[in-house]
């Protein structure tokens, strides 16, 4: 499982830590009442506080605190009942106050963990270092005018959770799994929508390499603001190879901040450590230390939904699913719910096969979402019921499912309407069987001579002549009785 890069001088491993900025789901910003909706006209969701006007003061939005605590609990992390907001001072055009209100040495959430679901069904635990609340900056737009930059402050002051992992990840794939799992947990908790395209989840990757067997931590490079899981993986891969090349050519890597160019698939230097900002953090005197009660934490804990790991374990225990299937089904809360609706009171293995197979395929093919599926869970359940009660054969059921996707109609209605009901009438099947036997005397003889594999061919012929409606089990039984006696 170990991900190793072979260099000219030996084998290397990658050490990766991720910092994820997750936009808190909240109607209002972290310290102002302005709205947070995505995609509004520029500078229409800006209060005087967000724009850094003289005399304006921040007031903490309790919903954002609740969301941070909820996320911390979801990551099985320590919740700090006292945390402190600090000012991170730097000048930039999209930072109206001249400082970002963040949390520095006393974050609201401390150490926790996140479990990666590996493709082989195994798991691996990754440490969470901390989670803190902070304000987002505005957006600078540099391509609207040849000589001017435009500033949109809609995002200025929006609440972010910065979630920092320990340097526990060892491959681009693990980084991808970490992000997928984190996004899944955030969506379960409804604390962040996890939408990387809209920027509501952004990732900085800290990357270093070391010879396999070494435990040292070499100087790392931080790749800023990568906006898709695939790009994060590409950036890590590129960066690791770059480090190895530098080391193997006798060079050294210096700590720096880099940017990922997704078009060229490479990272490039943004600023060196020497040029790094001195942020002059200090506790924000406009805000008292944030003190929350244990009872507040407890009440949030009591209201937590079942999270992916627990749900996965339950699916394995309750429905007898394997780790892989269970992992796939619980990745999204909606698909887990969909599965459970289908599986309820039915053969859970069958339900799993249908959801993971034909249903997910249809989801992909139609481009629809699980929230607005091409076939409802109730209809899919009804289809399985029709298989169970013998109305439909497995093959017919696939045809009916295709029609359900196409028409949106319930399976019973389609069976009725198109006469797709499986034929279990012995007389009708016998007539068809007899006709096929009569027309193929030579093949009958071959079967009798011992070539029993040809029986399958006979079944196919009978199914064909009955347009697939004959019950295949009955056909098989009748054929072997009639030919072999």
């Amino acid at each position, binding site marked *: 499982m170990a991900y190793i890069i072979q260099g000219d001088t030996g084998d290397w491993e990658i050490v990766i830590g991720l910092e994820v900025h997750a936009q808190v789901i909240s109607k209002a910003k972290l310290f102002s009442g302005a709205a947070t909706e995505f995609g509004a006209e520029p500078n229409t969701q800006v209060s005087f506080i967000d724009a850094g006007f003289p005399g*304006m003061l921040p007031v903490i939005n309790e919903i954002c605190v609740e969301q941070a605590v909820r996320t911390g609990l979801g990551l099985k992390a320590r919740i700090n009942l006292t945390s402190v907001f600090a000012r991170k*001072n730097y000048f930039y055009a999209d930072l109206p106050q001249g400082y970002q209100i963040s949390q520095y040495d006393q974050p609201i959430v401390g150490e926790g963990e996140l479990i990666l679901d590996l493709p082989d069904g195994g798991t691996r635990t990754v440490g969470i270092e901390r989670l803190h609340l902070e304000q987002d900056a505005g957006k600078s737009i540099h391509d609207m005018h040849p000589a001017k*930059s435009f500033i949109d402050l809609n995002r200025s002051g929006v609440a972010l959770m910065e979630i920092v992992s320990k340097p526990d990840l060892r491959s681009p794939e693990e980084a991808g799994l970490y992000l997928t799992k984190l996004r899944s947990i955030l969506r379960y908790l409804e604390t962040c929508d996890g939408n990387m395209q809209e920027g509501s989840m952004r990732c900085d990757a800290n990357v270093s390499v070391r010879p396999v067997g070494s435990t040292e931590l070499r100087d790392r490079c931080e790749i800023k603001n990568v906006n898709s899981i695939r790009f994060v993986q590409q950036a890590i891969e590129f960066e690791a190879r770059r480090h190895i090349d530098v080391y193997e050519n006798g060079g050294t890597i210096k700590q720096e901040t880099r940017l990922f160019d997704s078009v060229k698939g490479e990272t490039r230097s943004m600023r060196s450590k020497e040029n790094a900002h001195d942020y002059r953090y200090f506790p924000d005197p406009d805000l008292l230390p944030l003190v929350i009660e244990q009872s507040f934490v407890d009440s949030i804990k009591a209201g937590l939904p079942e999270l992916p790991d627990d749900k996965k374990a339950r699916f394995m225990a309750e429905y007898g699913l394997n780790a892989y299937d269970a992992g796939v089904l619980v990745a999204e809360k909606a698909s887990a719910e969909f599965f459970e609706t289908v599986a309820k009171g039915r053969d859970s293995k069958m339900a799993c096969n249908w959801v993971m197979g034909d249903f997910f395929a249809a989801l992909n093919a139609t481009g629809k979402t699980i929230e607005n599926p091409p076939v409802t869970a109730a209809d899919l359940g009804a289809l399985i019921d029709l298989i169970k009660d013998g109305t439909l054969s497995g093959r017919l059921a696939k045809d009916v499912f295709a029609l359900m996707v196409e028409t949106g109609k319930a399976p019973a209605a389609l069976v009725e309407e198109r006469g797709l009901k499986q034929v279990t009438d012995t007389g009708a099947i016998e007539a068809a069987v007899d006709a096929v036997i009569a027309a193929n005397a030579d093949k009958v003889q071959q079967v009798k001579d011992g070539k029993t594999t040809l029986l399958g061919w006979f079944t196919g012929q009978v199914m064909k002549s009955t347009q697939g409606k004959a019950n295949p089990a009955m056909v098989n039984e009748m054929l072997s009785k009639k030919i072999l006696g």
Partner: protein
Amino acid sequence: MSKLTDLTMAEARDGLAKGAFTAVELTGAHIKATEAQRHLNAFIVETPDLALDAAKASDARRQAGNIGSMDGLPIGIKDLFCTEGVQTTAASHILEGFKPPYESTVSGKLKAAGAISLGKLNLDEFAMGSSNQTSYFGAVENPWKKKSDPKAKLVPGGSSGGSAAAVAARMVLGATGTDTGGSIRQPAAFCGITGIKPTYGRCSRFGIVAFASSLDQAGPMARTVRDCAIMLGAMAGYDPKDSTSVNMAVPDFERALTGDIRGLKVGIPKEYRPDGLSDEVARVWDQGIEWLKAAGATPVEISLPHTKYALATYYIIAPAECSSNLARYDGLRFGLRVPGKTLDDMYKKSRAAGFGAEVRRRILIGTYVLSAGYYDAYYAKAQKVRRLIAEDFRKAFETVDVILTPTAPSAAFGMGEGTDDPVTMWLNDVFTIPTSMAGLPGLSLPAGLSQDGLPLGLQLIGRPFDEETVFRVAGVMETAANFTAKPEGV
């Protein structure tokens, strides 16, 4: 009409109530006084038309029998309070022309109480200074003159120098001030008026241009203790828009003026009598102690051992906060912008042109003390010392009810004096800064005149949120002091 401007706020309130004059008449008289005293440069912006409109509205309200606690009373607003639609500059070039689209909570509460603003009062730039000589809009002159040199222009103190001068010169009945390290109390002492910095958290800071957020506090400046009590009652109160304002009921401060301080213990801190304290200041202080004794209170010597570190600590914490608070003045969204070749170039040019020398000095100090490698040695240590200073007071208040000290080490000094040595200037606040560091209420009232005919102030310091005891003792002292002197020509 000059008589109307000699009234105290309480007298004017009663006169309006009795119908002896109207708010329009009262306001008109003060507008005239403002015009007559324009040479003092107390106002940055005068708003006589707005004031007269407001006075008419006040008279109409009175007719309708629906008045606020300060209805019809002309006041001035320190130009650190944002006032909707009226230029607010903090006496800085960088905010010249800025008209806030919002109102500070405190000035809004005063308006809601019916008070009538005559305009925006001058101050030290961003409230940084103790002599009102750092204003971009020119220095403010103290209406008081030395007997020995009546032509010499004196400073009114600072940073609320315009407020103090306007109240002393009878241009307004009262004015808002803000106090970070003594900016209400020291100018009140220099101009022979009364001013109180209430407990940190008593008044909302929302809409006040921030200097040092953990210290800034608004308060009233007026000619009597009662007037300060009336005005603080209108200014104070919890504001959900300021996380550091405290959710406590506002007492009726005027009712605290019982005149009875029998049995109270008054702390006299020995550390406030350093070598070289002027004889005059020491004499006034001793006199104050005698007045309190005569009224039945008991003076108790106390020790505030960390006093000597207060000034140095203040000049780390206040600049640190200011360096961050003033980062928003970047030429981008409001105020002065000097174009540059790059964003950084524009920042540098705008801020270099927009900020005066004292503001730049404090931004540099503050940036330095917060820098990587220096934070622990300066800022973190200063915060520790600050807690020790607060602890000194907490212990003292276990045995005493109120503390009496001088307000400032000297009377008002001449314009131009001390401007070349910032540290000497900073010493003006040596008696007021410890109170600010501890967040306690501190009131200055005029206690007498120096031999050269200048007012000298005494400071009363109270327990947190016990402005009532401070007012009560101040009321008794005011009666005993019987300070009736007025500046020449007022």
